[in-house]
């Protein structure tokens, strides 16, 4: 099954605070392992929220707003598309990913795990 995971760090990181160097150093080998075992399909970190744009349609009218989006709570710092046999395996991987952050000085972080229904080149 294909899973889509979003990573939501605390707001200071979303607005551009750099992650701890030890986390950045640990991320390369961690991702290399996940690529090698076939579970990690693609992943990316996003530029700070302050550089983002939010398009909102309400009743057929579109408003365009530049970031940051103070009223939003669940914003994305990065994402990953992963392949696992079961949802339990996906949750296990998300737990490992959070533990990596906890071990390297980012103890507050959210990960959402969702199954992909269909798409193109995902």
């Amino acid at each position, binding site marked *: 099954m294909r899973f889509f995971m979003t990573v939501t760090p605390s707001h200071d990181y979303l607005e551009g605070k750099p992650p701890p160097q030890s986390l950045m150093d640990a991320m390369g080998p961690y991702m290399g392992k996940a690529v090698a075992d076939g579970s990690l399909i693609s992943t990316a970190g996003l530029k700070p929220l302050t550089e983002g744009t939010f398009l909102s349609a309400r009743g057929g009218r579109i408003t365009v707003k530049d970031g940051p989006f103070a009223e939003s709570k669940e914003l994305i710092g990065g994402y990953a598309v992963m392949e696992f046999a079961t949802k339990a395996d996906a949750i296990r991987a998300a737990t490992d990913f959070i533990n990596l952050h*906890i071990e390297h000085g980012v103890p507050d972080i959210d990960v959402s795990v969702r199954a992909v*229904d269909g798409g*193109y080149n995902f």
Partner: protein
Amino acid sequence: MRYFMTILPPKDVDSGKRPVPQSLMDAMGPFVEKAIASGAMISTGGLKNSATGVRLTGNGDRIAVMDGPFAESKEIVGGYAVFECPSKAEAIQAATDFVNLHIEHGMPDIVVEVREIAGGYNI
């Protein structure tokens, strides 16, 4: 530049109370094909509804695991797309076209967030 877009549908669509209009589903195939053919769209996925999702929250050194649906959430991601566009203005134009497609086909309330990708693997 690579852009990552999240699509946030209305909550009653995510919950299944409001069905996705058939005409929108019919129009999506040709829309996506055109975006791929132009080289703008790299990948996209629609997600199963949030009731089947799980959210893990690290808080200090503890991890809380919560099954969906997430009643307290204002924003639920329904899908995503990775785009290649020469400028942010063109990424916003692509997102506007996508929102307009929804408006034209009976979903006049939808949010799209456009973010530039900093780096990653196989994006």
